[in-house]
């Protein structure tokens, strides 16, 4: 049996529904249809009355989840695309995210955002907007890069007492495969060393982990050993693991598929520069998407986001300093 990243997300939801009567799923077309990406396939049948189609009302979808959470439920909201979460944004950042701090009542909701670029996706079906959620206090923002993490982190997201924005990468949905689902996992908040190396630390997350790994393989052919850190969670950030890696390599490249201004890469460089300044023996660098909307045409899209080729190129620049 071989499972995709998407299967893992489905399985995690099935597992959560099975084990915890407080869990339900609400989102456009998640019911009988099984979701735009089939992440809830067959779940409505398996769990009658607990996997429900919502109207096209992102604001009310999240609001409903918050209310249900107050009543002790553990709702999972599926946004059809991360890009459309902007119209549910207010309920996430101002309603869900402030509830615990204001009242002491926790708000365990999970908002699943199918995010990231795919060929032909275009400006409104490709966005990486994890940073706008991470900017607000009170939100946990997760970005699994592997089939195993998609599974175990989604389970943990549902179990957490806080609002979680779960960024699942559409490009990885069918692209990644694993033999089986994990029974153990790193906890949320811990980064993973996806590949060890001594010459340069590449810190990244989600789909870009695979571009970085590919670049690392390429560079190993040139004699460089690249360490790849997979953040897993972008808020909270595992500064310790990053710092330890930079302490070993002395060099840092941050790679993100999101826009540059104030993104994950900026946050990481800011942390390393201020807390681990002495560890660096070269200027830390970042590589992001270009600062324009995500283009539709594959020619442009491939140039817009970082790829193994551009990661390798950016890495070489640092290594050759």
């Amino acid at each position, binding site marked *: 049996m071989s499972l995709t990243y998407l299967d893992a997300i489905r399985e995690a939801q099935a597992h959560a529904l099975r084990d915890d009567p407080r869990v*339900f799923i609400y989102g456009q077309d998640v019911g009988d249809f099984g979701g735009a990406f089939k992440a809830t396939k067959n779940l409505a049948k398996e769990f009658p*009355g*607990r996997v429900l189609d*919502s*109207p096209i*009302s*992102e*604001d*009310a*979808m*999240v*609001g*409903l*989840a*918050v*209310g*249900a*959470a*107050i*009543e*002790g*439920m553990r*709702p999972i909201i599926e946004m059809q695309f991360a890009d459309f979460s902007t*119209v549910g944004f*207010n*309920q996430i950042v*101002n*309603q869900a*995210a*402030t*509830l*615990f*701090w*204001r*009242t002491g*009542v*926790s*708000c365990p909701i999970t908002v699943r955002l199918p995010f990231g670029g795919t060929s032909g996706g275009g400006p409104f079906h490709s966005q990486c907007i994890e940073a706008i959620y991470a900017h607000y*206090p*009170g939100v*946990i923002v997760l970005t699994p890069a592997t089939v195993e993490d998609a599974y175990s982190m989604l389970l943990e997201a549902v179990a*957490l*007492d*806080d609002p979680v924005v779960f960024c699942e990468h559409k490009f990885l949905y069918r692209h990644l495969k694993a033999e089986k689902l994990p029974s153990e996992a790193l*906890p*949320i*908040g811990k980064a993973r060393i996806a590949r060890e190396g001594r010459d340069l630390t590449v810190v990244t997350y989600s789909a870009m982990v695979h571009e970085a790994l590919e670049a690392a393989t390429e560079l190993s052919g040139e004699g460089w050993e690249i360490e790849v850190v997979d953040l897993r969670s972008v808020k*909270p*950030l*595992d*500064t310790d693991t990053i710092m330890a890696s930079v302490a070993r390599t002395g060099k840092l490249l941050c790679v993100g598929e999101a826009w540059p201004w104030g993104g994950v890469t900026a946050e990481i460089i800011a942390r390393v520069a201020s807390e681990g300044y002495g560890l660096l023996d070269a200027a830390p660098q970042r590589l992001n998407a270009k600062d324009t909307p995500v283009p539709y045409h594959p020619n442009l899209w491939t140039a817009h986001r970082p790829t193994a080729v551009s990661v390798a190129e950016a890495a070489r620049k640092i290594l050759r300093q």
Partner: protein
Amino acid sequence: MLQPVTEPQLAAFRLMLRARLLDDKFAALYRAGKIHGGVFLGRGQEALSVSVGLSLRKGDVFAPLIRDAAGRLAFGETILDAVRTYLGSSLGPMRGRDGNVHRGRPRDGLLPMISHLGAMISVVNGMLFAHRLKKISGTVGAACLGDGATSTGAFHEALNQAAVEKLPLLMVVADNQFAYSTPTSRQFACDELVDKAAGYGVGAHSVDATDLTACLKVVGTAAARARAGEGPQLIVAKLLRLCGHGEHDDASYIPPEMKNSTLGRDCLKVAEEYLLQQKWTDAATLATWRSEAIREIEDAVAQAQREPGPDPFAEKWNAIASEHLNETHPQ
């Protein structure tokens, strides 16, 4: 000769009176510079608000808005909770973290509003939806709103959502003629806001909010229908806001003709006259109620003023509930 005091108007009136006196106290404290931030009153809206609060029971859900002191008291909020929040006592339900009308106790079904208008309605939906999933039946939830807030997308999405799920939602709209300074003519173009009901497929109820008896009856009927499983009920109540938007606002934009019209009547006065006329109470009883309420309010203020404000050094500066993450990832 007094009628038996079981007339519901009497209990309602007493709550309205308490709410009015509480509001008056906040206004006075504001003028005296004792309150940080804004003060928002429900003056003129007590009849509607109390009717909403009284239509609810323990186990129900209530999402009041800025003019619902009366409804809050009727639903069981204490005067002390209100006073502590306005005065920033660290012992209040919001612990100084939030203030004034942004208070509540979610576990008791009393939602603490966020400021974004319309945003609480879908939260009420969610609580009612959870009741259904948990097989708790017979509860209802009330969400309050103003005429202005009917223009928000949040209101629309939530009312439609409630209709699709056939949730026992009381959608209470106080059409008090103004949204801050904006008259209804710049807010909507339908003849009556209640005309919206058909477009959502929900029950429709109109009421003169200056008339307590009518409010109790109409809101009570709507609540009963929701409780009986007939789905969401839209109640549109007409009145005039008898104060500024907040206490910083002199509301000089409200035309005098409007103030002098029937719409501009003070529901508290109207109710008082009615109760006296019906001989359900007398002036002496009312005076007692008033002085009792004043004493309670003054006591609460005195107590809250003695209580400590929040201590920034003792404060836990954590926005998330997951303690293990706060420990592994300190700020």
